[in-house]
């Protein structure tokens, strides 16, 4: 279960979490020492970006082989018999009715 790409994704996510915690801790430190907050230290930003790249790479590797986008793939196997059906417009006044004359009698009786 714990294959290499799973480990990469977990490492990436841990890195992101660590960067988030570091950033929060940095801000509270700045607030405590009453310094002005201009921007985050470079190492936290770098850690965040690197973890993002590592996580993306891991997820893509985990997803497996990509299939090409084929807009017409779903239509290849269908014939006009099914595609040409317009169910909202079905009319029942056709020859198939003549097969069951006893049904018409039932209607007249009831």
């Amino acid at each position: 279960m714990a294959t290499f790409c799973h480990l990469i994704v977990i490492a990436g996510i841990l890195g992101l979490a660590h960067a988030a915690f570091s950033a929060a801790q940095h801000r509270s430190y700045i607030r405590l020492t009453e310094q002005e907050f201009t921007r985050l230290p470079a190492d936290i930003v770098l850690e965040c970006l690197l973890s993002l790249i590592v996580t993306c790479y891991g997820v893509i590797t985990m997803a497996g082989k990509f299939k090409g986008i084929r807009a017409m793939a779903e239509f290849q196997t269908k014939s006009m018999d099914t595609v040409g059906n317009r169910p909202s417009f079905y009319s029942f006044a056709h020859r198939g009715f003549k097969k069951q004359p006893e049904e018409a009698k039932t209607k007249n009786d009831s």
Partner: protein
Amino acid sequence: MAATMDFEDVRDKLRKWREDKVRNSTETAELGEYLLANYRRKLGDEVWPLFEQVSIASLDCGKLSLARLCIHAVREQFPQSSRSKRLHGMLEEAEGDFESAKETYEEILKGDPANGLVMKRLVAIHKGKNDIPSAIKELNKYIASFMSDSEAWMELAELYIQEQDYSKAAFCFEELILYNPHHHLYHQRYAEILYTQGGIDNLEIARKYFAQAVKLNSNNIRALYGMLLCAYHIASSSKSTAKKKTENTKYASWAKVQLDYKYKQSEPKDEEVLGEMFDRLAITSGN
């Protein structure tokens, strides 16, 4: 037949037919009746779409008693729903009582004026009475409000074809192609309309659309035949230039080679018949 198949197979089959909008009503009614009679509890909430599917299928076969049972069950469960009222309207249509069907639908529309499905049933009423011009008028009214409904455009095209108004039918299919440019069947059908209209210009355009259909789906045999016939007619027409004749003979023989190959792959016993047909059309391989 139904009793020998097991529950999951029948249910999955019916589900697939419901999703793909297949219209084999006799089998649907038979299998659906079997499921509903014996496995009502196992189906759970899927009973209701199944009831709807079976009622429409039984209306199609003329099994009105089965249809009445199903529709009654649905109406008892969902008395206020416009969907169940619509089913009741369809039952009245199938019985031939178009007036009360129209009243039913207009009542639903009074409560819900934007109900597209019910507006489409009004069109179907005109179809049932075989009054195609009114059906076309009603459908044009519907399309004015619901412009992107592919089903409605295709229905309008088929109604125009019935009235032999091919230019308007071609327009409808152009709209369909605009909405779905990757659908090979729309290109093929559009080409068929142009081919029916006839004339060298239309045949050329038809050949191009058939070619596009083949490009989108190489298994579309009908489009290959269409391409073959268009090219053949252009090549043998007296009005085409020599250059057009040679081009089209090449296209025709290309289509012939493709058809030969496809038939060899799947129906080798038909090769002889195919060969005879080509001989009669007198198509030789490219020069």
